[in-house]
């Protein structure tokens, strides 16, 4: 029977998770160079629209519809057919539509996370096709395995509270594959310095705020288990932020703002699979406490920080915004840590600290399966798209920036005196009125360099 309190909580949680993706848009948008700011924000923002449609049409049915041999759901629920206002099948106290909506938000943010790996060079049209295929062929199956009645959740019984494998390892590994196949950004190699630090913090704030819905919402009820997930989530995020702060300070002599924001995300990523399972240590003394979350968060930043450092030294690899290091590495750590710290008194399952070492193996198996599937499938999709439509913008376009060349919209317009900061003196007058519409396929020259008269 539907419970209004649980329903209220999951409705809100769904809205909170939805906000995370625009949050990611700003987190990523602030980190790139200004000439790519609008294009990078666009990646995450358009994904909210695109994946929402893909999800209600077929992806939800594939991921959560009637199980086919533990591997995938069928298309019975195509277009949400039969997904209604009554409770069940995944919860007895909230409407099926709410569960679907909540899950949709996870399907939205996962491909958005990947965009950080190919920022500043990916071709927009290819990006849309890639995202559609990725959600269908990579996300949906993995979600089914873990949460949709598939083999990882039902046979293997590996734990993933809110998406350590489905969301973060999956996105992180896909990001690695994408960075390798798409290749490095052109032009003279240069460290990308965030063009707008407050924008990065804004994004991190949205992510932190929304993550409460992400993790505590995964309880699907408003009770003590949601409370535990809420607290472990915040604790790991906080500890992650402090740890990264310390490391950046140690290595540069200065405490980094972007570092704290990144560390917070690292902590959130790592606690995601564990949020509702950990919270008491040692298990013997059956008391709730904060230590497991503190350890998970701190370790996440240590691993994430050095992963970023090492990978940034690999010349061939240009994972623009360190998606693999932050989501892949910390996601793996979180999935593993879940096997270590889970205790029955909190989430019903005992792990290493409670003497149940096997859980670690279950976790490792789930991690392995996700890594393999995500890497192979992502690489496959991209290699096909490379032949079919091409993956990158031209060198010249990359140099000019994606905002102008891909979208015809500089993020900041220098149109007016007293106008925006970027304005450097010129009042652009519209001198010819509407320009002849350009048919979509036509290769248009970058705004700053059109042919004669244009």
């Amino acid at each position: 029977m539907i419970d209004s309190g649980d329903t209220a909580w999951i409705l809100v949680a769904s809205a909170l998770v939805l906000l995370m993706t625009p949050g990611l848009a700003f987190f990523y948008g602030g980190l790139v160079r200004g000439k790519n700011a609008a294009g990078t924000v666009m990646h995450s923002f358009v994904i909210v629209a695109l994946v929402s449609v893909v999800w209600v049409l077929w992806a939800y049915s594939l991921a959560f519809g009637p199980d086919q041999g533990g591997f995938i759901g069928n298309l019975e629920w195509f277009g949400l057919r039969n997904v209604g206002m009554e409770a069940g099948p995944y919860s007895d106290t909230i409407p099926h539509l709410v569960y679907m909506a909540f899950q949709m938000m996870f399907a939205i943010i996962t491909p958005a996370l990947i965009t950080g790996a190919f920022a500043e060079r990916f071709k927009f049209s290819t990006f849309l096709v890639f995202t559609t295929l990725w959600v269908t062929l990579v996300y949906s199956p993995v979600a089914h395995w873990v949460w949709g009645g598939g083999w990882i959740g039902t046979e293997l019984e590996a734990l993933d509270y809110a998406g350590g494998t489905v969301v973060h390892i999956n996105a992180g590994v896909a990001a690695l594959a994408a960075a390798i196949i798409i290749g490095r950004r052109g032009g003279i190699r240069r460290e990308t310095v965030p063009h707008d630090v407050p924008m990065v913090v804004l994004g991190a704030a949205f992510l932190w705020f929304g993550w409460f819905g992400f993790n505590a919402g995964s309880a699907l009820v408003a009770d003590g288990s949601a409370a535990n997930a809420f607290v472990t989530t915040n604790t790991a995020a906080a500890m992650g932020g402090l740890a990264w702060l310390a490391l950046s300070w140690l290595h540069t002599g200065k405490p980094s703002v972007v570092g704290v924001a990144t560390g917070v995300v690292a902590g959130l990523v790592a606690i995601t699979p564990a949020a509702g399972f950990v919270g008491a240590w040692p298990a013997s003394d059956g008391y709730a406490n904060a230590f497991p979350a503190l350890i998970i968060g701190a370790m996440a930043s240590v691993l994430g920080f050095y992963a970023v450092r090492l990978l940034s030294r690999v010349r061939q690899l240009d994972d623009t915004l360190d998606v693999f290091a932050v989501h892949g590495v910390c996601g793996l750590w979180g999935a593993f840590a879940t096997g270590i710290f889970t205790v029955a008194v909190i989430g019903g399952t005992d792990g290493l600290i409670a003497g149940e070492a096997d859980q670690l193996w279950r976790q490792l198996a789930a991690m392995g399966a996700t890594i393999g599937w995500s890497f192979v499938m992502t690489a496959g999709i991209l290699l096909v798209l490379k032949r079919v439509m091409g993956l990158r913008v031209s060198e010249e376009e990359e140099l000019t920036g994606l905002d102008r060349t891909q979208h015809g919209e500089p993020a900041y317009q220098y149109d007016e005196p007293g106008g925006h900061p970027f304005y450097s003196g010129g009042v652009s007058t519209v001198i010819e009125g509407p320009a002849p519409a350009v048919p979509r396929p036509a290769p248009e020259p970058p705004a700053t360099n059109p042919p004669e008269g244009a």
Partner: protein
Amino acid sequence: MKKIEAIIRPERLEQAKSALTQAGFAGLHVANVTGRGAQRGVIHSGRGGESYVIDMLPKVKLTIVVKDADRERIVELIVDAAKTGNIGDGKIFVSPVEEAVRVRTGERGEAVL
């Protein structure tokens, strides 16, 4: 001494700078300007999906003060580095400078450059 002011494409600044560095010219300063000339630009209005042809486009102005002797050399370096062959590549202007002073030391003359 001469002041060389080059108005070039932003995306070519990097090349121009490296060319100057290789040739041993470190000192310079750069400002952001917008300019117009024969070149036209296009901007979009995302709402009605119309695009407009506009006149002013972003350029960077690279200023370098050099010994009279280096003048030609530098003009050529910049032309080579900044040229794309398309309209909008920009212009270089050369004008006289009577005196140069290094603030840090108060020294004067070509030594300063």
